[in-house]
């Protein structure tokens, strides 16, 4: 395609042109009816932008967005019609109440896994609806309240039609810009990692609970604002604003528009609010056609309208940021991590049973043992993904037993996973995520991520899709991600699995170099030919207990170790 107007050919440019065209149409030609549909579309766009943050970015399927919308609507409705309070008072309160509710209910329910979280939020929405219907003295009951004033502030009234549409869309623009700015920064990236891989996010120092709570409360603010504007538009408030169809509309808008995209929320709202209007002439059948159109949209454009735009007009590739090394820190020598009598049982099975070991700076320790002997559980305990039942973990002289994963990560523990999965997106982005809590800007985090990739010989992989890499390369990128944490303790879970002999030799050299920089390294591995030459010490677990530990040769020759694990055949 010839690029006549380079700026217009990018999705952003197309959206800007489309927005300007829509604006011109609204300002010059639209009838009162068209303006009203556009206004309502703006209201839903605002609610959907908030939903994009909690659902699109943070990946939590919150079914409470409709409830936040409804609460915002009721606050404005009740205060406006019963007490005659003006917009400058009711609008902030319409944001505040959903926000407070989100904080209160978010704390217990955000821990829940996906569908449980969805249902919990749905339950909250249903309770709010029941209250609205059954507290007629406050809410007007099922009849709702009429006579809500329009938007008026400081002596200026906003009449319906063009001014109201402009006011609502101004709010959409402001909210959209704010959300876009938040989404593209460090916070937005942290949320996407929380969505794609919450475990990895925690081990990279991100407080998953706090991030999710923040996303949830921000979405509540948007929901409340949209609800308030909805009531100013329709001038009555009734339980319909709290009913499930509102939630379904917001969800549908987000998906059809493009999950996680601010532009998607706006495009989706404009399309979905107009779609039924186009089929009005069909009288009763119009919703059948609407359903069919919706089905078609989701089948034809599963990544939403923004997905279609991006496929038609791929955004220009990002300019690579040159790698930059971080300032190396002085590392204390000697014992960095001490594990004493650590225990963990699942049901009746003692996965780890009184393990004691220590890791020293600059040394590589090997952890071996048969499958199910507790190696991975030990790493999970030390990195905070599991809470120990007993024993102590001491890091740099500080007791850290039972700390959460993100706190341990910030204290200097980094790890890789046996499965070595990377989220969708570029390798550089995946490694950049490891620097989000340290660097002040995305650019700095990217430069440092480049440095980490360079150190494992994977800088050239930067622009590639991490999820699509072969396992061996994924392991290498995961190692870079762990290194980008500048850890004091590095825990590697079977880093050599599936590598060729050459790759193993390369990996061993890189691990040795990391250790030489003063990091205490623990390597879980089955391949003795790879492990024994690399490590300074070996710990052998069996049935959750330490069977033997000491110099590699001594442990390998230990009869108990041979009987339990190594077997007769030399490996």
């Amino acid at each position, binding site marked *: 395609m010839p690029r006549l107007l380079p700026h217009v050919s990018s999705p952003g440019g197309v959206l800007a042109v489309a927005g300007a065209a829509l604006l011109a149409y609204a300002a010059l030609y639209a009838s009162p009816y068209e303006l009203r549909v556009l206004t309502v579309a703006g209201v839903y766009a605002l609610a959907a932008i908030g939903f994009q943050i909690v659902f699109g970015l943070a990946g939590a399927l919150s079914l409470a967005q409709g409830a936040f919308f409804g609460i915002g609507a009721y606050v404005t409705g009740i205060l406006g019609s019963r007490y005659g309070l003006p917009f400058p008072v009711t609008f902030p309160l319409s944001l505040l109440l959903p926000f407070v509710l989100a904080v209160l209910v978010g704390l217990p329910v955000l821990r829940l896994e996906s569908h449980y979280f969805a249902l919990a939020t749905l339950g909250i929405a249903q309770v709010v609806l029941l209250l609205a219907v059954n507290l007629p003295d406050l809410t007007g009951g099922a*009849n709702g309240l*009429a006579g809500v004033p329009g938007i008026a502030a400081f002596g200026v009234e906003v009449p319906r039609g063009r001014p109201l549409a402009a006011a609502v869309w101004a709010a959409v623009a402001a909210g959209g810009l704010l959300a876009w700015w938040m989404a593209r920064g460090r916070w937005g990236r942290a949320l996407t990692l929380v969505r794609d891989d919450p475990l990895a996010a925690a081990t990279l120092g991100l407080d998953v609970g706090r991030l999710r709570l923040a996303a949830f409360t921000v979405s509540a603010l948007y929901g409340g604002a949209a609800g308030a504007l909805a009531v100013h538009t*329709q*001038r009555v408030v*009734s339980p*319909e*604003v709290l009913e499930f169809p509102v939630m379904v509309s917001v969800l549908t808008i987000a998906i059809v528009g493009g999950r996680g995209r601010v532009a998607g929320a706006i495009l989706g709202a404009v399309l979905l609010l107009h779609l039924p209007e186009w089929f009005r002439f069909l*009288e009763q059948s119009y919703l059948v056609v609407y359903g069919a159109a919706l089905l078609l949209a989701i089948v034809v454009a599963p990544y939403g309208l923004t997905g279609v735009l991006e496929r038609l007009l791929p955004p220009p590739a990002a300019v690579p940021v040159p790698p930059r090394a971080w300032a190396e820190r002085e590392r204390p020598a000697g014992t960095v991590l001490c594990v004493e009598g650590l225990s963990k049982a699942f049901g009746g099975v003692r996965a780890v049973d009184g393990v004691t070991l220590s890791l020293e700076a600059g040394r590589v320790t090997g952890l071996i043992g048969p499958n199910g002997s507790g190696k991975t559980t030990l790493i999970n305990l030390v990195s905070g993904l599991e809470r120990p039942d007993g024993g102590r973990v001491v890091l740099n002289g500080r007791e850290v037993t039972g700390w959460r994963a993100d706190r341990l990560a910030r204290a200097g523990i980094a790890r890789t996973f046996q499965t070595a999965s990377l989220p969708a997106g570029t390798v550089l982005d995946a490694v950049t995520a490891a620097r989000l809590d340290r660097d002040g800007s995305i650019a700095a985090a990217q430069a440092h991520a480049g440095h980490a990739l360079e150190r494992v010989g994977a800088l050239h992989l930067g622009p590639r899709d991490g999820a699509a890499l072969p396992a061996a390369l994924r392991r290498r990128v995961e190692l870079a991600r762990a290194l980008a944490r500048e850890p004091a303790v590095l825990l590697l879970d079977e880093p050599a699995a599936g590598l060729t002999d050459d790759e193993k030799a390369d990996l061993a050299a890189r691990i040795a170099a990391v250790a030489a920089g003063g990091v205490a390294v623990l390597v879980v591995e089955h391949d003795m030919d790879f492990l024994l030459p690399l490590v300074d010490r070996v710990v052998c677990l069996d049935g959750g207990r330490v069977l033997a530990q000491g110099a590699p040769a001594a442990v390998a020759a230990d009869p108990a170790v041979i009987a339990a694990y190594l077997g007769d055949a030399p490996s």
Partner: protein
Amino acid sequence: MRRSLAFLLLTGIISAGPARAETLNMPVLVPLTGFLSLEGTSQRNGAVLALRGAQPPGVTVATDVVDTGTSPEAAVTALERALGRGTTVAVAASMLGTQMLAMLPLAADYKVPLVTVSGTASITEQGNPWVFRFFPGDAVTKEAHARYVVEELGKRRPAVIYQTTAYGQSGRAHLAERFRALGAEVVYEEGVDPAARDLLPVLSKALAARPDVLVLHLHSGPTALFLRQAAAHGVEVPIVAGSAMHQPSTAALLDPAEMKGVCAETAASPVSGGSPEMDRFTADYRAAFGTEPDAFALGQYDGTRMVLDAIARGARTAEAVRAALADGTHEGLAMTYRSDGTGNMAHSAVIVCYDGTSRVPQVVRRYDALSGSTR
């Protein structure tokens, strides 16, 4: 359904036809989808039947049926859409109270009368001169309801079971007020969600309060459900139901024996007949839509006919139609309509009872000139 579609095409042809006839619009904006689709469809049919009848000379009154769903937002959008086309002299508007409340300010802005059968009391209490209700409001129907229970049946201990919807809560408030005024003690009252499936819990609790009459104010399906469970459990206490009972679709769900002795309030019961005009309406309605008419259809029919009469007498603008509705009197099929000054056109209600052999009830008592006021 096919017939009504053909009719729509027909109106399209008529309205596009002779150029010399002036075309006025009377759009029909009613809930055709969602939980009120049954009543909304009756409204639609009533309005459409009236508009299909004799047209005023020299004028073509075209219509456009738009679904308002159940949200106020959709109703307002539909109204704004309808008012943007041609000369609209009146609107047949949703019977859902919240939708009416949302449409009223807009109707006042555009100066176009809304003709509805919504029972929600507050729609005529807004001081809005553009609303005309061709169905007795809740205050009126509940006066007839309560007076029949107390004065005719001589009951003093009613148990009230209502729906937790706009219809139910509004009716419940008026029943409570009216019973208090009549000196009857409501011994039990409870709201029931329309989605509730088993009504035995509420039935047994109501009976435990030892009422001498069960007063229902439920939608169509729940009314039938309640009566069926009451019949299965051999409940002896008489039952006087709300207007949903008179809807033929409610009776269709039950065996005639299950309805034996049950009475209900309503504005009218077209299927019960009573006059040749009413019988003709019922026959036309059946022929046109293949279903039985109810009081909502009749009320909307009467209201629409009053608008058409006004046009026939020369009203060509929305303001002229409003004036005719506000000041005129209309001999409708259900009753005589005349505004009380706030847009309440209907002041009569009837009590119908089922004899246990037929699904068609008999009108047993007629209340006229009800004020709906307890003072």
